[in-house]
């Protein structure tokens, strides 16, 4: 009680200097609480935005792929998933999986005609199954024309408004909804071509810096363009031949007299389109199930020739940007508090020096070292906790203010972080606990040396004030 009384009155007596220190501590605490809330809100919002626009909770892709999936691998697409149908069935049956969306990234040419002249337009695209894509990432809303896979199961392509503007600027034409075009795609055997229709245009609501350059094509047109096709069913005799090949030489020679194998009727084969999907985005029932689902996919991976990457690994540099931002905020906060701690230590040392006679007097009157040390710790704690409380109140008010309407960010930062728009802050208790802990820690660390100096002041210093 005596220590606290002395501490509080000493702070009041040196109010000017202590107000300066208190302001620094309050500012530092504000930065800790607001910064931690901002960083965690940005991390959460960034995760949500990446999951909802690029990757789902995880991406399943071919085990033959050498690179991780990325939203930007248009020039070096991943290998096709070998048996996409089986993989899709496997994923849909997994507990914890809410929805899946097979898709592929690629690039090609859109050939349009103007006044009898063919114009080749470069075209970067996602090939999607509209219904499953909408389940995972939400529907692509047309700004003109119609959407892919509408009520009539429309096939064709959707062009971004920005891309269309670029076509006009660079090639002098603008694609119009309903326009017939030819798609050209480079395949292993040459150039594939398929007739298609421009269904409509869209303007991305989020990640405009990415989706302005990405267009959408339905998966069927994509398979046609690249000739991803198989047959519905093989002739019965062919099936027997394949079975014999599996069984060994004797079985193969046993078919030697089979007349049905002497001439196969290939005219009866029915073509069936194969999926060209290179990735399957998976949304889970809850993010807590990621490990469980990843484990199940890894277990089945060898048979299905698939592997999985969690959203952050599959997000290209987006998750890294979010983490780098968090690291920067925490580093900046730590730096601010380091400076505050140094200034605080320095001020306390000056205080100790100025109060040498007072401390010596207390020691002469019978105060032991721990009393003197406790006095300075109490001063530091009282000042820092009061200042931290002010900083926290200010931070709390600011967080609440930006929780509803969101914190405006520079557009470039916002685009990379959350796909654009203001960042809604998500109030949480832990940044406040962190602020308190940091204030206490700084008090203890910054006071440790001055307390040692103060406690080592000899009682004979009482005589020094002559």
């Amino acid at each position: 009680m005596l220590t606290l009384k002395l501490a509080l009155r000493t702070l009041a007596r040196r109010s000017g200097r202590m107000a300066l220190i208190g302001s620094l501590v309050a500012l530092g605490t504000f930065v800790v609480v607001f910064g931690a809330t901002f960083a965690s809100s940005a991390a959460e919002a960034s995760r949500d935005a990446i999951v909802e626009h690029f990757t789902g909770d995880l991406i399943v892709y071919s085990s033959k792929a050498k690179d991780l999936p990325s939203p930007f691998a248009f020039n070096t697409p991943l290998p096709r998933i070998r048996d996409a149908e089986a993989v899709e069935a496997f994923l849909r049956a997994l507990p914890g999986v809410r929805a899946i969306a097979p898709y592929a990234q690629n690039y090609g040419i859109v050939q349009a005609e103007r006044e009898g002249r063919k114009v080749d337009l470069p075209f970067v695209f996602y090939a999607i199954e509209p219904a499953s894509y909408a389940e995972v990432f939400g529907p692509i809303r047309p700004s003109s024309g119609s959407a892919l896979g509408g009520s009539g199961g429309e096939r064709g392509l959707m062009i971004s408004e920005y891309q269309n503007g670029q076509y006009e600027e660079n090639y002098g034409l603008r694609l119009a909804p309903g326009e017939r075009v030819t798609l050209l795609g480079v395949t292993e055997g040459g150039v594939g071509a398929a007739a298609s229709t421009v269904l409509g245009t869209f303007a991305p609501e989020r990640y405009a810096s990415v989706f302005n350059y990405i267009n959408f094509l339905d998966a069927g047109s994509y398979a046609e363009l690249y000739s991803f096709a198989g047959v519905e069913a093989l002739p019965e005799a062919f099936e027997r031949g394949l079975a014999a090949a599996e069984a060994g030489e004797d079985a193969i020679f046993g078919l030697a007299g089979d007349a049905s194998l002497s001439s196969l009727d290939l005219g009866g084969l029915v073509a069936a389109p194969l999926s060209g999907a290179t990735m399957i985005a998976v949304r889970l029932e809850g993010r807590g199930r990621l490990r469980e689902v990843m484990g199940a996919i890894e277990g089945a991976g060898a048979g299905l020739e698939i592997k999985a990457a969690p959203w952050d690994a599959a997000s290209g540099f987006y998750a890294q940007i979010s983490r780098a931002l968090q690291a920067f905020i925490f580093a900046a906060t730590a730096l601010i508090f380091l400076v505050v701690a140094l200034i605080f230590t320095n001020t306390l040392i000056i205080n100790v020096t100025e109060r040498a006679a007072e401390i010596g007097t207390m020691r002469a009157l019978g105060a032991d070292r721990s009393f003197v040390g406790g006095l300075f710790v109490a001063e530091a704690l009282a000042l820092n906790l009061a200042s931290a409380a002010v900083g926290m109140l200010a931070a709390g008010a600011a967080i609440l203010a930006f929780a509803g309407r969101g914190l405006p960010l520079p557009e470039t930062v916002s685009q990379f972080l959350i796909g654009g728009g203001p960042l809604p802050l998500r109030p949480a208790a832990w940044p406040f606990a962190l602020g308190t802990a940091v204030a206490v820690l700084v008090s203890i660390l910054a006071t440790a040396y001055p307390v040692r100096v103060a406690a080592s002041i000899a009682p004979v210093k009482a005589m020094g004030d002559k």
Partner: protein
Amino acid sequence: MPVVELRKARKEYRLGQTRVEALRGVDLEIERGEFLAVAGPSGSGKSTMLNLVGCIDVPSSGQVLVDGVEVGSLGDRELTRYRREKIGFIFQSFNLIPVLDVYENIEFPLLLKKGFAKKEREALVMRFVEEVGLADRLRNKPGELSGGQRQRVAIARALVSKPLIVLADEPTANLDSETGARIVELMRQINEEEGTTFIFSTHDAHIMGKARRVVRILDGRVEDAGAAPGTGKE
């Protein structure tokens, strides 16, 4: 048994590269209840001797015994406890704690000593407040008091815990002569009434005249130990 005994007490300081001998083998005995002045010019070693007797410093060699205990052998914790229980201090510059008022300054040693109930502390503080005539200034801070009033507070603070010895290092040096005389008179009155041993340093001849024994120091040596009352040497 003497309450204070110095046996060949020496004290050296280092001032940069220079070694300063503040006390050069002092032998001195002070009896319980004495009202003793240590006199000498500035730098003669008066304050150093008081520091040793007050257990706020230890001798470089020789012995200092306070109430029969050789203080040089005590560690910091024991010395602190010893000061708390045996010694009261009156400083030249009063050395009141600026953030505490008159009452609280006087109460301070009792709070450090512990073991006093609030009522008991109040009774002791009020007794000495009245003794030094400051009952009407209880809630004043040191900055609101005159020099004489501050020194009265310091006297009350030194006496409140009923110490064996009160040490006063030039207690009148920062006071005008009239106030200084009144302060010494007050100290002497308490010495007579309470039987508390008072040891004070001064180089003021008028103040010296109020002491019942004067020990003269020059260049760190006792020139004249005076005579303790009742020893037949006065």
